[in-house]
């Protein structure tokens, strides 16, 4: 399936990318799965999305936990804990 992935703040900077369209393999169906999939790219990806790194994620602009399911056409975002206000 095809999804849109967004990166914000320090994640965006580390990856040098703010968004991409992605065709996912059949076995990737959750946020956690997508994160593992992206990490497999190695280099900055392995580092910025490392398991040890505390990140927040959203699906279709709602905060979502690692186990959240991803459907075709979804917008998935990776970012550090928020610091507004």
């Amino acid at each position, binding site marked *: 399936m095809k999804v849109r992935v967004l990166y914000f703040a320090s994640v965006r900077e580390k990856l040098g990318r703010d968004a991409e369209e992605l065709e996912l393999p059949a076995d990737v169906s959750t946020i956690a799965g997508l994160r593992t999939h992206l990490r497999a790219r190695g280099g900055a990806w392995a580092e910025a999305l490392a398991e040890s790194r505390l990140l927040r994620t959203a699906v279709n*602009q*709602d905060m979502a936990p690692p186990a959240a399911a991803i459907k075709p056409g979804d917008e998935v975002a990776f970012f*550090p804990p928020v*610091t*507004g206000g």
Partner: protein
Amino acid sequence: MKISVQMDDFDVGFEIKSISKNNSIGAVASFVGLVRDVAMTLEHYPGMTERAIGKIVEEAKTRWQVTDCTVIHRYGALEPNDQIVLVAVASGHRGDAFAACEFIMDYLKTRAPFWKKEQTAAGTRWVEAKTSDDRAADRWEERKPDAA
């Protein structure tokens, strides 16, 4: 109800006046967050930001009597002492106005997708999330609506 995510500054007096124009309102509680001594750039997630703030305000309305509410949050480059955020809540009851206003601020801090990048003399750095902000937001989990 007004929610705005904008680069431009806002006029606190005008905003408070605007939500005060209603004879059933007795109380307006508000909060202004300001940049302290370090210039910064605020990044956000367009679309999700407005949506997240809208959900926080809706949640506040289920908990307290909220007649009207204004939330304005800036993004982009900000200088020391610049205004960052305004939350103003109008209510018939003082306690409700205070509680809803503080609740919205606490949830904004942990649930609205904004990120601060400070420009210090030593260079730029992303501000780390504070556990004290998580604790402030968590407090509200323990005291849900009156006996509900």
